[in-house]
């Protein structure tokens, strides 16, 4: 059945809360100079950061660079973290800004096959289907659709948070998300 809104089921909501809690604690520890908190921070947000960077830059290698740059910047900026803030949103805003700076540096026009090549040896669990899904998402979705999909499905942000981040209305975020998923499904079937 097609419903108007999708919401996070409690299990996912619990996981998100736990993730936010871990990020919050890791940022506070990092700000206090505990460098080992970096691996907790990294493990709990790397996928969201990489997915957002990939969705904006449409280039795997550039997204990997931004993944690296985001965490180096977090290391430097941890003492500026607002204790009352939402850590994942804060991290992803930083990622978005770094991506936009990167885009300004390069004026790439088209996405080439090489841009989206995922090395075979990177992760033994990665399948051909995984590669095809991400490649299709990048090729077939509009820029805003792709970012919305990554932020909700991968990063676990609520539609409301995505609407805030992208300066669009909540209904727009929800409807673009649904449209993007349908489009993605259609393209994958055709492929």
């Amino acid at each position: 059945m097609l419903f108007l809104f999708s919401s996070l089921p409690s299990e996912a909501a619990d996981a998100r809360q736990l993730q936010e809690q871990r990020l919050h604690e890791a940022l506070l520890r990092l700000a206090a100079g505990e460098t080992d908190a970096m691996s907790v921070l990294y493990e709990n947000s790397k996928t969201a950061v990489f997915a957002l960077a990939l969705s904006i830059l449409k280039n795997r290698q550039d997204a990997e660079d931004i993944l690296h740059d985001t965490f180096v910047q977090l290391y430097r900026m941890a003492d500026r973290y607002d204790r009352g803030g939402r850590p994942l949103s804060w991290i992803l805003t930083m990622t978005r800004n770094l991506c936009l700076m990167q885009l300004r540096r390069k004026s790439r026009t088209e996405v080439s096959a090489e841009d989206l090549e995922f090395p075979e040896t990177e992760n033994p669990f990665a399948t051909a289907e995984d590669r095809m899904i991400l490649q299709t998402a990048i090729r077939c979705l509009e820029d805003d659709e792709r970012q919305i999909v990554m932020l909700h499905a991968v990063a676990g942000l609520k539609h409301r948070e995505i609407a805030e981040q992208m300066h669009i209305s909540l209904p727009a975020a929800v409807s673009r998300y649904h449209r993007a998923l349908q489009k993605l499904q259609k393209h994958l079937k055709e492929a």
Partner: protein
Amino acid sequence: MRNDPMEQKLKTAAEHLTPDVLDRILADCAKEPKGEILYMENISDPRSRNNNWIKVLSLGTAACMMIGGLFWWNRYRALNYTVEMDVNPSIELRVNKAEKVISAEALNKDAEIILEDMKLKGVDVDVATNAIIGSMVKNGYLSELSNSILLTVESDDHQKSVEVTDRLTNEINAALDSFGGSVIAQQVVSDNDLQNMAGDYGISEGKAALIRNILNELPMLKAEDLAEMSINDLNLLASSKQIALSNTTTTGSASESGYIGTARAEEIALEHAGITSADTDFINTELDCDGGIMEYEVEFLAGGVEYEYSINARTGQVLSYEYELSSGGSVSAGGNYITAQEARQAALDDAGLTESEVTFIKTKLDQDNGSMVYDIEFYTASQEYDYEIDALTGKVLSVDNEIGGFTAQTQTGSYISAEEAKAKVLEHLGMDASEVTFKKVELDYDDGMMQYEIELYTADREYDYDLNAQDGSILSWDFEALKAWNQGGSGSTAAAAAIDSETARSKALAHAGLSTATFTKTELDYDDGRAEYEIEFYTADSEYEYKIDGTTGAVLESKQEARQTSGGSSTISEADAKRIALERAGLTAADYVKVDYDQDDNEYEVEMRSGNTEYEVKISGSTGAVLEYDSETDD
């Protein structure tokens, strides 16, 4: 667990394909002394990938250099360094080894006024600098209200840069002695990033370098907003935030005389909140920039409540304010608010749930339209609830209920009738048709499916429903309590408007203390069964929204917002945007498809098509710069 297989697949794919760069991050963090600025190009690894085009380009560049080299060398062989001076006028001086000016270039229109009739070629650079500063003062660009100047020295020889910067800083400070200037002096080595940034925003490379420096420290700000700000505002922002900028020294203090000042901003905020400074436990004020507008952020704590105000730094207008119960504190001023636990229980009672069945996400005491309400959000296994509870009475003011579980499905076949849809709603409410008044029953296409949108009210509530038009299932619903003054027994019908639109407009104007304004909307609507006018208008500096009772003329709601005057309106025309886009794509007018203007971002989006290739180009409405360029060829 995610509901949609596609979501799960995407998440898994991203997890599997995210590279592991933790070792590289840790190694780089270890190298870096904390607190020191790193430029992004230093952070990124230099890559050898994709460099074939660089080789081709290098060969091309080398060939060009061979052809034009002799001419170039003859003209600039004596170039030693360049000096840029930015206030708003931006001027570039090229200086040779004998410290004489080779050329003086106006980088914007204001600078043309400054350099008018000034012959600086061959003049000693110190003398030229003095003359330029004198002209800036004479033309009003530098004054006690705005006393900051950005001095940028660009040279491959760092020692030379530092020496020249010091000398010219002293020269400028001496010239501005009458009112006390502030010089931000920086040494810069140009790079592609700076050149692109300067080109994108139509600013000098010096200003671009300063903005990049500020963004490194304050990454939450936007480059486009900073680009619109004057050097004095950037100087104020940097000093208010107490950030240290690399390769930069600042002498003197930026003038705040053009603004109302910290003390006045605090006074305005306290007065608005009805609190005296003696009653505050803590107050902190910072100058900030939001959307290119300078504002004072005033935060204070009083009676266990945290207040946050944004005050327009130039006009003193209250731009926004909010207050909430401080964590661990209690509102003793009112003394009679219900507790957070009581508010949560009221929401649970209304939803027919127990605490063990839900996960609370948010419980926040907040101010809404002048009264205190609790915002409460929680989830169950399948639904998300968003409640507003009156903090004085515990009454449920509104509930927003979102049903989870999105599954793609294609609708086919016929739809239920409007009467059947209404019956479904009545069944859900457990009410009889005589107890409600339907305001709207509309078949609509939304979110990829046919839906019935139904609005109705009962004796004390107004409901909104969305139904799947095919099977009548309820997709979402919410209600709001009717206002006390409008509860007139069951099935009350909407009252007709007793006043005309002209009277409603004048009521709104009188309330705003205005005699005239430009109206953009006057609409008679029925809300909560009451006739009311929705009126919108604006003046040179504010936008207003009003709701006026259609029967009594009373002001039901009013809202005033400062107009975004900085960067909000387009300075280049649609035709210009179209021309720039066609040039960028190398196409002709015949290939043009359409142009859209996005007022929020002040951007034009131009679509073109040639053969089976589609082009999309985004153009800045303020500078005409190409912000994005995309082309896609159909298979």
